[in-house]
């Protein structure tokens, strides 16, 4: 299995965290808050499209709301496969950062 890109990793994490509230608006805002940068729908959906194609993410349920003028609200959830990938990414991160505290950076800066 190919390693996830950073964007993919962030999106998967967001969907997982948002649980049954994971739809477009919420995911985007969540990521924007988390990263502190404005995450656009273009970034979100082009990545989401690949993730659904690769079966990491499943379209889980949809909702019709009057305010959305016929465009449905789609909820996403992780597939077991996606969850596994996320877990691997976590382990990878953990391995990579093992034994490093943020003071180490301050030390290097000096």
């Amino acid at each position, binding site marked *: 299995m190919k390693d996830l890109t950073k964007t993919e990793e962030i999106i998967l994490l967001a969907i997982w965290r948002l649980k049954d509230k994971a739809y477009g608006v919420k995911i985007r805002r969540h990521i924007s808050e988390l990263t502190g940068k404005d995450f656009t729908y273009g970034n979100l959906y082009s990545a989401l499209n690949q993730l659904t194609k690769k079966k990491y993410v499943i379209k889980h349920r949809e909702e019709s709301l009057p305010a959305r*003028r016929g465009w449905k609200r789609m909820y996403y959830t992780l597939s077991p496969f996606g969850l596994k990938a996320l877990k691997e990414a976590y382990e990878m991160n953990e391995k990579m950062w093992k034994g490093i505290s943020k003071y180490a950076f301050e030390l290097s800066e000096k």
Partner: protein
Amino acid sequence: MKGFTLKSPKLGGWLIGIIARYYRMSSLAGDFLEEFEETARDRGSLRAWLWYWRHLLKSIPVFLIDFIFWRFVMFRNYLKISIRNITKHRIHSAINILGLTVGLACCLFILVWVKDELSYDRFNKNLDNLYRVILEYPKESQSAFTSYAAPAAAEWLKNNIPEIAESARFRIVANRPQILVKYGEKQYYEERFGFGDAELFDLFTFPFLVGNPKTALSNPNSIVLSEDMARKYFGQEDPIGKVLNVENQYDFIVTGIMSNIPHNSHLLFDSLVPFENIESFMPEYGKFLHRHNLHFFRTYILVHEGTSIPELKEKVSKYLSIKFDVKESMWRHHLQPVKEIHLRTSGMKDLMKRGDIRYIYIFSFTGILVLLIACINFMNLSTARSCKRAKEVGMRKVVGAHRLNLIGQFFGEAVFSSLLALVMALIIVFASLPAFNSLTGKQIELGISNHKLTFIGFLLIALVTGLLSGSYPALYLSSIKPVKVLKGAVGLEKGKGFLRKTMVVTQFVIAIGLIVCTLIIYNQYNYMQNINLGFDKEHIVYIKLNGNLKEKYQAVKNDLLQDAHIVNVAASSRILTNAIDWGGDFYWEGKEEKEERLSFSYSTVGYDFIETFKMEMVQGRSFSQDIPRKPNEEIIINEAAARFMNVESPVGLATNANNVKGTIIGVVKNYNFQSLHNEIRPLVLTFDPENFQFMHIRIHPDNIHDTIRHIEKVCRTFEPGVPFDYHFLDEAFEILYKSEEQMSRLFNCLAVFAIFIACLGLFGLSLFIAESRFREIGIRKVLGASVPSLIELVSREFVVLVILANIIAWPVAYYVMNRWLQNFAYRTSLSAGTFLLSGFLAFIVSLITVSFQSIKAATANPVDSLRYE
């Protein structure tokens, strides 16, 4: 939230809709909306609007890059490889693309030409219900057709056949005899001066710019002009109500202006006057306006929608037998759909120059052949180079390319080349369109807007070319086994050479065939120019007889003959390119009327006609001034007529020619009074000064300039009101065979291009062979082979192929050209020399092409070829 009415931007919504649909993620658009409205509610509509657009503009590039990336990730690789291949093997690619370009350009020109030929008369709204009435008449035991119908046919058919909605007659004052039109100071000769019934405007789509088509011709002295003609005479003035003087005799009032008739109409005229004027303009026809048994006028009918055409044709063909109360008339009228007139009138008597459906077939076929040569080049060179590409194929296969991918790749490369060639071909086409127009005598313009279909056709041709030329390399290269390739086992296999040779032979068969055809067409054209017509057409000037020139013809003639350089002067009704006044009955003593109707051609000539044209009398004498007679009292017949009559001595026989009684006074030796497509038919020469239209002046070949000045002076003294206009008879004959000349020139071009492309291919192949045998040649040279023997080694193969191609091409060309020549009553013979010459030409050109490479290879220093090991 209440009272919230802000709408999201419309344009943005539409854009997002497109993206959402492409990704099949409708939630995307919903998310945008939801967040937009939330922002609007919390932070105001301005901010929401800004937010919306900022996000949209930032997202679009992401989506675009995503789209392009995934679509073209493979394509990019193919494109890169094919561009690399093109730039790496420059000569090879140049040959390929140049060949395709030339082939495509030929093909595009032919497409444009064919399209123009097929477009004739299509602008008429009633086209499907328009018919021309034509006449079948007996001619030497079989029947022939003429495009002219009986003068009274239009009226009779309309009154007696309910299916016919409208009918109209038309007559132009032929091609040559011009009509003098005057307005104030401006006066010109008009060639397209028509006489017609007002119903013509109901039948054909000739829209009026000014005036009412229904009433424009209701007055006998009204005239309708084309836009161009109105501008020529009136400039910026308002033409309506102005008076035009015609032939210094008649005045016509302009009542309508129609837009110019498109050049692709079979019916062409610049001005139209009511039909009854024929009586005064052409008295020789006017006398017979209500006859049923002659044929002078083009007659058109419009039938009701949904008419059963076979039944209608049946009724029309009964017209003459009903009228003359006979059971089965040999003369029958038929209907010809107007849409077929331009292309399917060959073999019918018709004064206008028409196209010919056979030329459409011939040229389309030739165009395809030339393109085929170019395709073969591409195939040949690609397969010849296959061993160089084989490694790439093997590599691709090893990393997992399917055979289909590879086929796609090579097709793609071929299509890429052909599209590149198309672009260059289009540049050539646009640049040389004026030259093409002058070559074919057409007025084609290629605007993108009104030729959409043509351009789609161009693109299709290019795609088909690409697919065709890519087919063999694609299938062959994709079948290569990777193991073999990577081991280095694929080289120039012996078996593959056979296919390549076959293709080379095919190319040369086509090229040689085209050269043979070109030479034969040229021969025939030359033959027609130089054949003995039965009279001397050189040094004859002809002048239209206008006003006083005709009234005082005898005095004019006497004055002209004062000049020692003027040999002789004779008047006649027609010019000898087509000297028939009409066809009609002819009876003589011993041949009873009503027994069988025979069509003789009639022509009116004046005194000294035979002498001026240096014709010979076989029996009797010609018309003589010393024995003055009443018009038509004496007639002369030609040998063909005498043979037809089958009487021992025709001179002195009493005759009845078109209901005019007379006596035969002489028999003239046969001469060609029509184009050489027609055989010499029975002809009756009558004498009637009323019918004189032209004066033929035989001048001495010396000092032509001064002689013409003298003629001009005489004409001006007699008729000062008319511009002096003269023509040479031999030039009129050149115009007569213009279509043969054009065809010969077109074929010439095609043949040159064909041989050019074929030689390009040969050049490429020999280059390749020399390259791949580079080392072999080096070794042979080291071992003592001489330069000539090495040249022979490389060239021999091709020379044999070209000779083989000759042997195949000759019989095919012989068969085709023999059939073409059957069109002519007088034709050149097919000589072996023509075939040998074209074979020799192809041989020499190909030998030069090949030896260029072989000499280079043979004279190279063997050190160069052998050192890198």
